[in-house]
């Protein structure tokens, strides 16, 4: 104590100076820390994959790439994957647009139920559709037997159907968000001036939607080619890159070729990511007309209404039936063999620990993700340092990186000291944090653009230091963006398989991995029951979140609006 007293005066000076320094430089310090995090947890793993793919014991080599391009079976895998990605993206965008148009411009009666159905697949593992398709259209499937269908499910078409159903909600969500924030006045004036609905859609709605559609397309494309559950279960003899990468690593323990496949998988994603960024620069006209106005349900012309409703109801029925089948399978002894109704799968509590683990990991990921995302958005918008747009680009690039690649990258990068994370729980959470960061960052950026910097300046002028301003003004205003990042990261982490499958360790099982293993293993009843439990828990979480945000004066649907575009 005596010592402290004697240093009292100089220390006060230092403290003041430190305080002043912090006040002035905190944004930059924060930016530096965040940048470091991005480098360690996003760039370094990707680099590790790249290095692995060009290194052999004797030094640098391109021999693995030569092998890839000269052997037919790898190349086939690439063309199949690209074809799958393109077909899927196209179908998802069309279906997503029809659904979004109906839920924002269509008959009031249809809006709520359609939206609900379209969002359902978001809360289930994507390969739920593989399971239900086998139950329905497998060689011994219900429909196959009932109608004597000769078509074989196992192959390219089966995978396309399953992947499309799994990722329509993503396309829908993005397009719906943009569509909802578009001012309908423009469309209405065109309508009043006598333009036909088809012409309005073609010349006004879709051009205004371009950014949303582009983003939806990119996201669907990346997810489709990376999530390998459906392709692994339904692929039959058709090779695809993502399951091949998985087999290469997990089956053959060939990390060099696995890395090559990963790099090849990244390339189309990166190209589309840059294309998307390039096409969006200078296209800021989406916000025309300021605040969105609730759109009156217009009378849709039958020429538009009938095909739209036809597409939407086909998709909707497929989704409902798929969920129904999985529900049925979880209450049947062996669906298709012994259709006795039983509770044995539901009462099998072996999966409880895995579900609990998944929730724990997802919560940690969501919390860190939302925090990092919000802070990143802040330094990107408010920071005044060189390289801001570079940080923005890196933090948004996460969602253009296939999960399989991130998983392998983390496995390669964090398996040895100084940063040994494998075998722990944090590696499972962190890969999700940085993969799904983009949503929180984008929501944060768009929120900050709405907040006038004058409020912060006023606070500073009145004597508040940076920290006070940040806590009292910025954080509360950015809370919706925080929630957006939180919800998205939580939900996707819970059901996503492609990265964590490489990272789980003995004694710490995750629900998504467990369901996939059981499904591949053939235990449909067990896999279905675990899926249903997971879905029930996600719904419960959403209800609780909804309740909390309502209580605290936020509307979740509004948050979802800021989630994406």
């Amino acid at each position, binding site marked *: 104590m005596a010592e402290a007293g004697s240093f009292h005066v100089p220390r006060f000076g230092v403290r003041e100076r430190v305080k002043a320094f912090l006040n002035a430089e905190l944004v930059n310090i924060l930016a530096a820390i965040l940048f470091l995090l991005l480098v360690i947890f996003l760039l370094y793993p990707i680099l590790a994959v790249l290095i692995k793919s060009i290194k052999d014991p004797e030094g640098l080599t391109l021999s693995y790439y030569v092998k890839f391009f000269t*052997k037919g*079976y790898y190349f*086939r895998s690439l063309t*199949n994957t690209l074809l799958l990605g393109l077909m899927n993206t196209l179908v998802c965008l069309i279906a997503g647009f029809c659904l979004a148009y109906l839920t924002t411009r269509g008959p009031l009666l249809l809006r709520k139920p359609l939206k609900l159905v379209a969002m359902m697949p978001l809360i289930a593992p994507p390969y739920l559709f593989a399971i239900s398709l*086998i139950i329905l259209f*497998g*060689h*011994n499937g219900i429909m196959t037997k009932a109608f004597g269908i000769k078509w*074989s499910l*196992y*192959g*390219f078409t089966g995978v396309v159907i399953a992947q499309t159903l799994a990722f329509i909600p993503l396309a829908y969500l993005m397009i719906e968000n943009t569509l909802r924030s578009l001012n309908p006045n423009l469309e209405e004036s065109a309508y009043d001036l006598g333009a036909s609905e088809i012409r309005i859609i073609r010349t006004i709605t879709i051009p205004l939607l371009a950014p949303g559609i582009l983003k939806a397309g990119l996201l669907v494309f990346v997810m489709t080619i990376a999530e390998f559950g459906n392709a*692994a279960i339904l*692929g*039959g*003899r*058709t*090779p695809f890159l993502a399951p091949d990468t998985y*087999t290469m*690593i*997990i*089956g*053959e*323990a*060939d*990390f060099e070729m696995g890395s090559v496949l990963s790099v090849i998988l990244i390339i189309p994603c990166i190209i589309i990511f840059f294309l998307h960024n390039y096409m969006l620069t200078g296209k800021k006209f989406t916000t025309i007309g300021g605040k969105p106005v609730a759109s009156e349900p217009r009378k849709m012309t039958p020429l538009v209404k009938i095909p739209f409703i036809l597409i939407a109801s086909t998709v909707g029925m497929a989704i409902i039936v798929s969920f129904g089948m999985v529900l049925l399978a979880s209450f049947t*002894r*062996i669906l*298709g*063999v*012994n259709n006795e109704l039983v509770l044995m799968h539901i009462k099998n509590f*072996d999966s409880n620990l895995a579900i609990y683990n998944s929730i*724990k990991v997802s919560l*940690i990921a969501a*919390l*860190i993700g939302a925090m990092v995302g919000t802070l990143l958005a802040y330094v990107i918008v408010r920071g005044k340092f060189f390289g801001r747009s570079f940080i923005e680009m890196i933090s948004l690039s996460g969602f253009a990186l296939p999960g399989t690649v991130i998983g392998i990258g983390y*496995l390669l990068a964090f*398996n*040895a*000291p100084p940063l*040994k994370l*494998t*075998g*722990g*729980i*944090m590696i499972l959470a962190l890969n999700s944090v940085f993969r799904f960061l983009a949503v929180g960052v984008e929501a944060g950026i768009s929120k900050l653009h709405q907040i006038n910097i004058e409020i912060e300046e006023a606070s500073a002028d009145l004597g508040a230091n940076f920290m006070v301003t940040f*806590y009292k003004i910025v954080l509360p205003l950015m809370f919706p963006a925080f929630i957006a990042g939180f919800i998205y990261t939580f939900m996707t982490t819970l059901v996503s398989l492609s990265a964590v499958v490489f990272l*789980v*360790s*003995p*004694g*710490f*099982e995750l629900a998504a991995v*467990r369901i996939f*293993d*059981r499904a*591949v*293993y*053939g235990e*449909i009843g067990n896999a279905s029951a675990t899926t249903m439990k997971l879905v029930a828990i996600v719904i419960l979480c959403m209800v609780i979140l909804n309740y909390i945000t309502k209580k605290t004066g936020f509307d979740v649907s509004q948050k979802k609006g800021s989630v994406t575009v």
Partner: protein
Amino acid sequence: MKGKVIFGIVAVMVSVVLMSSHGFAQEIRAYMGLSPENNAKVVNFIKGKTGIQILQTFQSFGEIEAKVKSEAPNFNADMITGCGSPLAFMAKKNQWVVPYDSPAWKGVSSEFIDQDKNWFNISNFSFVLVGNKNKLQEKGLSMPKSWKELLDPKWKDQIVMPSPLSSGTANMIRFAFLALYGEEEGWKFLQALDKNIHHYTRSGNAPTDLVGRGEFLLGITSDENVKKRIDEGYPLIWSVPQEGIGYDGTFALIFKTTKKMAECKKVIDVMGTPEFSSMMAEIGYVTPRPAENKLYGKVTPKYIKLDLGYAAEMRPKWNDIWKEKFRTEFK
């Protein structure tokens, strides 16, 4: 206020992370590649005998091999309590393991224990031919008596078997046929068989379920789950064709890096007891200590003569040949 909240959140998270990384004394982490149910049986048996809790996640032999290879030499487990022969031989060669001369394994024949005591084979498993009783009857077909009969065009697209790229069982199936017919003729047989195979599954047990549910008529599959599925009511029949079947071991070993050597040794000791063998035989495995087998009964099935070490060594090359021959189709 907000600062406190965030501090609180961070504190909770840190404690969660610390808690989960804190192990308990009587727990060991092991890679274990039996089926999920059989893993559980072994875990419970060991716990009952020693009080040691084995923490494990169901993974296939292939997954375990990749994990171990990627983690070497910093393994995230204390031991392996079930992997295929390629990994067991690789681990011995690279000196990832601690030899242990267990008193409980005295007198076990050389197929089941390494001469330098690096690995312990806790059970042999094989592959059998399975068929769907109902579907075969419907179509007026009967179970083939010999492997050669599978080449008949009437089985086109009606047979499933696992892929050796992802499954240890399939690796065993492949080297059994190469040993049975000799390498040149063996590949010719596999190529002819390929014409009738619908597709190659990821897991070695998947054909049992696919055939059991009537998706396909015939399957070449791991014998691990066959009896269990029949007991559950799947309309399955199984047979050992006249040429015989191949086999592979399920290996246990202790990693050099473990900090729980005493516990690991106890686990190995238990695995050498006749009681453990009886338990495994009851599931359907052929065991180090002779015991009546649930699937095959008292007679050991006819085995094809194999060299597991050679097969482990040749696997990468055979995988390349496999991909050349069987992977280019587009359906």
